């Protein structure tokens, strides 16, 4: 392996390690900072949340010929 390839390899390894580190740091920050905070407001103040929901048949209108149905990811 030439020195250029070696540098490329080390850079790639550093990038992977950096991404892992960032993700490891970011995940708890987002979860305990944003999600949990919002969740508490959402659940307790707005009285929303799936834990209190009930099963039932909700009305939808979904058909194979609905225009643009297949183009969306949501």
């Amino acid at each position: 392996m030439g020195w250029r390839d070696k540098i490329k390899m080390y850079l790639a390894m550093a990038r992977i390690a950096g991404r892992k580190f960032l993700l490891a740091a970011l995940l708890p920050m987002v979860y305990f900072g944003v999600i949990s905070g919002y969740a508490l407001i959402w659940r307790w103040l707005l009285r929303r949340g799936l834990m209190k929901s009930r099963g039932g048949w909700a009305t939808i209108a979904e058909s194979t010929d609905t225009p643009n149905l297949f183009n969306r990811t949501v």
Partner: protein
Amino acid sequence: MTITLGISCFYHDAAAALVRDGEIIAAAQEERFSRRKGDPSFPESAINYCMEEARVRVGDIDTVVFYDKPGLTFDRIVHSFLSVAPRGFKAWREAIPRWMGEKFHTKEIIVSGLHESGIGGEALARIGYGGPVLYTPHHLAHASAAFFPSPFDRAAVLTIDGVGEWATASYGVGKGSRVSLSREMRFPHSLGLLYSAFTYFCGFKVNSGEYKLMGLAPYGTPCYVETIKNYVAQIGEDGAVTLNLDYFDYMGGLEMVNDRFARLFGGPRRFPESRVTRREMDLAASIQAFTEEAVLAMARHVRKETGEKYLCLAGGVALNCVANGKLYRDKLFDEIWIQPSAGDAGSALGAALAVQFGHHRVARPPKQALDRQKGSYLGPRFSEREVEAYLVAKGCAYRKLDMAERGDTVAEALAQGAVVGLFNGRMEFGPRSLGARSILGDPRREDTQRTMNLRIKYRESFRPFAPAVLAEDVETYFDYSGVSPYMLMVAPVREDRRKKRTEQFIGEDLLAAVNQVRSDIPAVTHWDYSARIQTVHAETNPLFHEVISRFKKKTGISVVVNTSFNVRGEPIVCTPDDAYRCFMRTDMDYLYLEGFWLDKREQPVVEKDDSWMQEFELD
């Protein structure tokens, strides 16, 4: 000419399907190629096969469609965490990197092959796929897989599974080239997840052990039904299921149920592979009874709301053939058709069909023999030349059979009590072996169930085997008069064929129960005198039909034992090599390999090596 490639992957049981001008050309699960059971990864090999079968290149494909809308699924996941936070961090830490890695990049993975190299990924970009990547709603894909291949021109459609995006069940109507859904049940209330929760609690694997729970149920008594209804889940008059989420952990945890659930049912979950106790048998019977009640209530509601005479079913719960049998006997609908690949793998097919008929406005082709599913023989086939080349290269001892002697040779071996591997034509699409990749046995022998479970399949002794019966003789053996080509209906063995059990089974010794003779076809009669029927039709599988016809001539019985060609934890065999290796590892006596006959005693001696048992993770 319009060609659509349907893909399902990233969750469990990845698959690909190719549809041309409304006709299903090919469909296969990735696990059959990768040899990893329930393989969820991008189905490169399955895509490769589908294109090979259709003799098309990537550039010929008009549309590629994914079976799910990832944005909606992520929305549901975030809402789940919002409902349990600050609990649930461990699950969050596991889920989010997966989303960042692949699920957010579905389109990129499909188009440019970032995920892995190979025909499905890299080649799509390299060879030049320039068309759109589309997305179907998960349950619309199920519904399309249920209706479009069915024999009906119009029918009610009911889908029930664990969860797909937000929906856990849905119903609507299929008419001609259109499927529309009008109602859905939403997460977290799910009949499929409830069944999976009990599967997990009884020590079996979620998403693969559900059928074991179903097989265990007849040994138990449904004594926990009231407990389930009082504490865990309720069924509305319209079949809607409401779960008490205080007992479950799947919203934000890594397990299906919590300690409260365990306390309610008398202690911690059964440790996987440990002894099955009476509690698990009773729990299995109870959740099975609950599920049947819910499915029947849903079907009643769908009948009332849609007014349709026929019903199409799909979704993982539609693989519960005991519930299907009850639905059939209830006569709510004149006829029922169930997608043989009812789980998520079948959604690849459903998505492709939905786009063909909905997006491309292709006309729906007329039905063939029984329906539009081609007997579900949609996988790879191998020519005699290919097989012979393999056998020669491998140094196997074999005999080529004339066309006229094929059925008779297999039937004669079965009549002598031998166990035969049958490798014949195109591989099945779906979880059941239907006579293309099957292990066959004599149903009259008392020891067949035990022998095949323990010495050939290496699996739990209590698990029942299914009968494959000539379609024209089904009423001779069972209280059933319809067709069941996909082994998705359970029906009782006729009273006049039953034998009284010598003792009431009340203990925990499953082997003693298994050994009791229950009818004149004991190997395929379950403890409760039921059987999971496959009706065999000459139109869809002529060789298999001939084998059973010849067996009938020799023995007077037109039923054979049919089980999947694999060992426990292994995906069903796909290639001649998979089949030969499985044949040599087990106590099978003969192998029919696409016109060639292999006798175990004549094969080259191989050293006894059980290390392969580590190759497959137990299911």
